[in-house]
């Protein structure tokens, strides 16, 4: 087996809170890995720490504790040269294609920006054309000299992807890549990301709140709640038979557009607590419909529930610990 292109071990990220002594534990000990050609979705609600995790991988946020390695380079200890190599290896696709393109630049300049930044000045136009074509903007000649405002939302997001592809990365980090786009063009962007993973072996870390949309496009899924991963496994398995009560509730409330299917939503009470004030025991227990007595005292760890699935819930603790 080859080494994963991205490994995160026991990552903690803390911020100072609003009050002087508050500590916001945005990411509170998560571990994950991503293989070549794999699409992993990090799913959760706002404030669960998924974007903070992505920012730490991209080197935009400094972890408090823990270890991140990209293509074998340890982000925390990397020197300038190694960091530059890591930055060329991973590329970011941001949420809002309207804000992530500089309105004053041409598409060519935007797409070749990563190359210029890394001092690869040869055949820029040629490589931009190739990247645009790979991102599904064909014929690329028709797009390369335009400016962002002349393109639709879906086309802009393809330009962002083309910019990421120009430097031939091994890892794409896509933060809510389709949430700002119209429904009719979302599938095109997701198909493209999946195809890049399948054909070019690029690893894709997808950050999203939208379970239904990513379902068909990611190989594995990790569900986050309040700074922790509470459940992970192959996407279709998790969706078909969620284990953690939070995953179950989250799946049950996704609006369904088929009038012939009747759904039974599990509405959780209240709202996700503040990350500066994490509940004792299992952090989900105050809202958990399945909580029982020990949940308020014991903080469950993420345990394997089968070969390829994990879950952090006391309901499954006995299963894996033969007592």
């Amino acid at each position, binding site marked *: 087996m080859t080494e994963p292109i991205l490994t995160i071990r026991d990552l903690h990220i803390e911020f100072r809170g609003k009050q002087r002594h508050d500590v916001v534990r945005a990411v509170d000990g998560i571990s994950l890995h991503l293989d070549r050609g794999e699409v992993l979705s990090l799913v959760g*609600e706002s404030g669960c720490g998924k974007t903070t995790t992505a920012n730490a991988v991209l080197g935009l946020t400094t972890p408090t504790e823990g270890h991140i390695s990209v293509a074998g380079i340890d982000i925390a200890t990397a020197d300038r040269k190694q960091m530059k190599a890591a930055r060329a290896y991973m590329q970011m696709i*941001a949420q809002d294609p309207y804000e992530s393109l500089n309105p004053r630049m041409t598409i060519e300049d935007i797409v070749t920006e990563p190359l210029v930044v890394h001092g690869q000045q040869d055949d820029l136009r040629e490589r931009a054309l190739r990247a645009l074509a790979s991102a599904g903007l064909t014929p690329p000649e028709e797009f390369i000299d335009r400016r962002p405002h002349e393109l639709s939302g879906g086309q802009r997001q393809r330009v962002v992807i083309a910019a990421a592809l120009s430097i031939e990365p091994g890892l794409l980090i896509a933060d809510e890549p389709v949430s700002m786009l*119209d429904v009719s063009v979302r599938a095109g962007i997701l198909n493209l990301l999946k195809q890049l993973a399948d054909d070019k072996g690029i690893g894709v870390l997808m950050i999203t709140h939208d379970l239904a949309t990513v379902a068909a496009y990611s190989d594995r899924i990790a569900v986050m709640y309040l700074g922790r991963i509470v459940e992970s496994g192959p996407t279709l398995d998790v969706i078909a038979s969620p284990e953690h009560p939070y995953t179950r509730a989250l799946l049950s409330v996704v*609006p369904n557009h088929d*009038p012939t299917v009747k759904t039974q939503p599990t509405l959780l009470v209240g709202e996700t607590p503040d990350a500066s004030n994490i509940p004792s025991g299992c952090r989900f227990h105050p809202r958990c419909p399945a909580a029982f007595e020990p949940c308020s005292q014991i903080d469950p760890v993420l345990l394997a529930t089968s070969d390829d699935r994990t879950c952090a819930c006391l309901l499954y603790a006995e299963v894996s610990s033969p007592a």
Partner: protein
Amino acid sequence: MRQFFRHRLGVIGIAMLLLAIVVAIFAPWIAPYDPYANVTITIDDIYQPPSAAHWLGTDDGAKDVFSALLYGARVSLVVGFAGALISVLVGGTIGIIAGYRGGWVGHGLMRFTDFFLVLPDLALLIVLVAIVGQSLRNIILVIGLLGWTTTARLIRSQTLSVRERKYVIRAKAAGAGDWYTLRRHVIPQVLPLALANTVLVVSLAIIAESTLAFLGLGDPLLISWGQMLNLGFTRGAVGAGAWWAMFPPGLAIVWVVLSVTLIGNALEDILNPKLGRHHLEPEVPVETPPPDVPVSADVLFQVRDLSVGFEVSSGVVTAVEDVSFEVPRGKVLGLVGESGGGKTTTALGALRLLPPNGRVLGGEVLLDGTDLTRLEEGALRELRWNRVSIIFQGAMNALNPVRTVGSQIVEAIRTHDESIGQKTALDRAGELLELVGMPKRRIESYPHELSGGMRQRSMIALALACGPDLVIADEPTTALDVMTQAQILDLLERLQEELSLAMVIVTHDLGIVNEACHDVAVMYGGKIVEKGPVARVFTDPQHPYTRLLLEAFPSLDHPGRRLASIPGAPPLLTAMPTGCRFAPRCPSAFERCREEEPHLYATSSGVAACFLADPIVVAGARND
């Protein structure tokens, strides 16, 4: 640039400034006399009133005032522009470094700036010039080095905002260094603002120079406008009644400062086009008497052939065309479509809450038989909130941030029924909050103290404050988390049933329509393309757009299914295709679709604007 020339005052400003510059450059050729020349004079030559030989008379030295005025332009403009250049360079550099670096460097630089900002400018100016000596170069330097503070603050805040933009973050994540980011992204974005600011700094520098010269601290060897004023004052022009020695330089200063200010204002207008505009201003109603329109008793809200347009520079573009739908009492209609489809414009247009350039172009909006498009403003205000209320997208913007939730609800209640006392209204506000699932004590809370879900709940409580019959909800759950969205939807459904409200939900989410609405109207390109009961339309869509939209929408019932996307992009308002508006993206389109626009045909599940639903086409297909 073209924009600028449309700005009339800006053009006048430029013309005025150009005149001053031309005069300054060509002063030696235009001026009838050389004011620097030594001439022998007699007492009769002093303070001569204007004449053919001396258009603006002579001064205390028997020099021609008109010539001095022309030469004076040189000093004023040179000091103005050179001083401003220094100020903007210093201020811009400090601002960019402070904004981009942030941290203690930024902090230190800003404290330094604040220190300079509170120093009394004029006093310092006088002291410094007195110390370094009254030469032109020194005056420029002193003015330049004292005038940079406002520029620094302005540039810093702009840099801060650019630094947080997504494309800058993306470039950094891609490995871009500071110098690259500054050169490529920050400076180009900051430059226009710096330019507009420069113009204003120029005028300040000119005034500063004039002030110094007037106080006798100008370069004694040079003629400037301030100097002329100073000499006039100190050498008896007032006593001699020689107004011609005083007025022209004063007016010249006003002339140049005014021209520069006009240019600056024009630039500012262009750079901040939204300045001073209110977003949701009600428009003027159509002034015709309300007709009596019979409506069937159970239909509460009926929109007939509503068209809405926006005034743009090239004319009026139609955003919504001939939209008709009705909402019976106690029923919920979903208005669904993608961005640009016209669903929000339809809702806002129906209640006459369009942005200032929006116009209802035609049609009727009947609420219990009253046509809202023809109602006068007072009567309409009465109706809003009492009979119909709206829940906006993004509750943070719709709630007043500086007032408590309770006081906003109380205000809504008491504006519409003055007989209700403060105490009763406050009790009612508490009850309303409980109704929407919030603790009563939250009436004391300010919007920023609430979570997104709570804010949306407050917005719903506010909408229900006056007991409306109809509630229009514009994307009520967009930007909320999945679980919060489910809670809010559940709340809306419960309230709708309990209070038997009629509702229009504007959304892009087909799932919400299915779970919360009885009927659905699908919009595309500003028109309704399909309409009918949700259970029918979603199981057996008749319009290709509805079908494709359903296929593009993810479902957890078939988690492995790849979604279909619709090729192409929605049409632009300014470039609507001829024929059917969906034809360019439609897989089933045939020739007729590109030539003729389909109207709504009756179908098995309602109505659809598609030739495939045309009875003639249907019959033809059956015969084949």
